[in-house]
């Protein structure tokens, strides 16, 4: 039996402000070790803000973020990331003037250097395209390749919690499918815990064990992926014509 205190990530009553705008209005949710949990919601609902608040940038004004039982609410971003969280952020944020290989090495900054070769091979096995392009500059990659690199880079630190912000954004359906397959694969084979933020609700809910729905800074619904997929409100708001 695992109570909510034992969750790998536990967000409780978090409020975050951008200036005077309250972007998160008391958000609470949990991610258990080994799960894929998704957070769906419209553009501007505060999904990315939540991911960044977990990483301490910006910090929560109220409420607490606990990772692995420890309160990380007031820690610096780099300390939080060194404690075992990795994020593939909104807009991918590939270093444009670094090669693919250097971007991956940056991801491995907090990892044991002895693992580097092994982890590179693993990233290349997940995304063979990255291997072909390893000496190319990040800025020259296509959108799909940049997304693969962003996920590969996040995995290089061997995180215990992987935060993914809209990996499907702006990508062709075929690439989206590939990327979601890889997310499922790393969860199954490596037991990676994944917290996935998506607007592409259909794919995300099919993949995830559980999901939360966010509307203007608040969590309004929660359930298993299948429950939310079957939910009328979710269908009306997020799945119309979705694929």
């Amino acid at each position, binding site marked *: 039996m695992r109570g909510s205190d034992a969750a790998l990530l536990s967000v409780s009553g978090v409020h975050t402000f951008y200036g005077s705008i309250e972007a998160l209005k008391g958000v609470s949710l949990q991610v258990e070790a080994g799960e894929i949990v998704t957070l769906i919601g419209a553009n501007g609902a505060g999904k990315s803000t939540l991911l960044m608040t977990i990483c301490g940038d910006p910090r929560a004004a109220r409420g607490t973020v606990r990772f692995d039982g420890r309160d990380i609410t007031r820690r*610096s971003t780099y300390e939080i990331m060194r404690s075992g969280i990795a994020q593939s*952020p909104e807009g991918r*944020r590939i*270093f444009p*003037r670094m090669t693919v290989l250097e971007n991956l090495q*940056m991801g491995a*900054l907090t990892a044991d250097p002895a693992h580097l070769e092994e982890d590179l091979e693993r990233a290349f096995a997940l995304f063979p395209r990255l291997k072909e392009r390893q000496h190319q500059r990040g800025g020259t990659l296509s959108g799909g390749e940049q997304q693969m690199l962003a996920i590969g880079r996040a995995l290089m630190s061997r995180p215990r919690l992987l935060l993914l912000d809209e990996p499907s954004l702006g990508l062709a359906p075929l690439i989206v499918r590939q990327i979601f397959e890889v997310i499922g694969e790393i969860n199954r084979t490596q037991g990676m815990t994944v917290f996935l933020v998506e607007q592409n609700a259909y794919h995300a809910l099919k993949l995830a064990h559980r999901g939360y729905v966010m509307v203007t800074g608040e969590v309004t619904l929660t359930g298993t992926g299948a429950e939310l997929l079957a939910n009328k409100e979710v269908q009306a708001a997020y799945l119309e014509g979705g694929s």
Partner: protein
Amino acid sequence: MEYFLQQLINGLTLGSIFGLIAIGYTMVYGIIGMINFAHGDIFMVSGFIALMSFMILGIAGVTWVPLALALVLVIAMIFTSVYGWTVERVAYRPLRGSFRLAPLISALGMSIFLQNYVQLLQGARSKAMPPMIEGGFTLMERADGFTVDLSYVRLMIIVATLVLMIAFTTLIAKTSLGRQQRACEQDKKMAALLGVNVDRTISLTFVMGAGLAAVAGCMYLLLYGVIDFYEGFVVGIKAFTAAVLGGIGSLPGAMLGGLMLGLIEAFWSGYGSVEGKDVAAFGILVLVLIFRPSGLLGRPEIEKV
């Protein structure tokens, strides 16, 4: 021909010193987007530290020149780095995230502070040092007795600069620290998300810039034998010009800009007038900026720090 060669040697020496200082300007600009106007004064402080170290070592009886030189370099680099670190900590870090001009004004203030600080401690007059390294090679002799000399000091300056620049380029291109600096330069938020301590990386950038300025300060003292509290302003403006000429933010640009500026000054002094050398240097800067506003190598795809 002999005269040309001599001016070439002089220009390369001066350009090496400009280049070493210019790297500090360009790296700081690359990583936090500000011009560190106090950098020239950091160079001046290092000259005084070197001068004092030579005197103390002299009193302590360290008279073997290579050893004294090595010790002075190390001492100057350490103490100057502390100055560089402190300046960033005191004058720039508290202003990070405030409006763009604030750190620039703070930098000007820091520059004035350092000049007055040294003037108070050391006096306003130039301090002189007897030449440490004498002699050199005579490369050529003309019929009328004009000789082309490569003094040991100039040779040492050129070689040391070459070695440092190769080491430095390798550091930035190949090591984890260099990657972290480039990451901060390209996207600080993402760098932090990968576990980079951004504040520490910025501090280290200042320390590295100051370390190179310290080498330049020692070289300058060895070459000219005098230093005064105002020296940093003049040489600093030249090195800053070199950084802009090469393309501010670009590491190879700073080196190239430094060398070019040194050569322009040397040839202008040699063939034109010594008084006109600054006009020539800044005139060429204006021309380059008209036709290449981002400097010679300052294109976005060039590796910057």
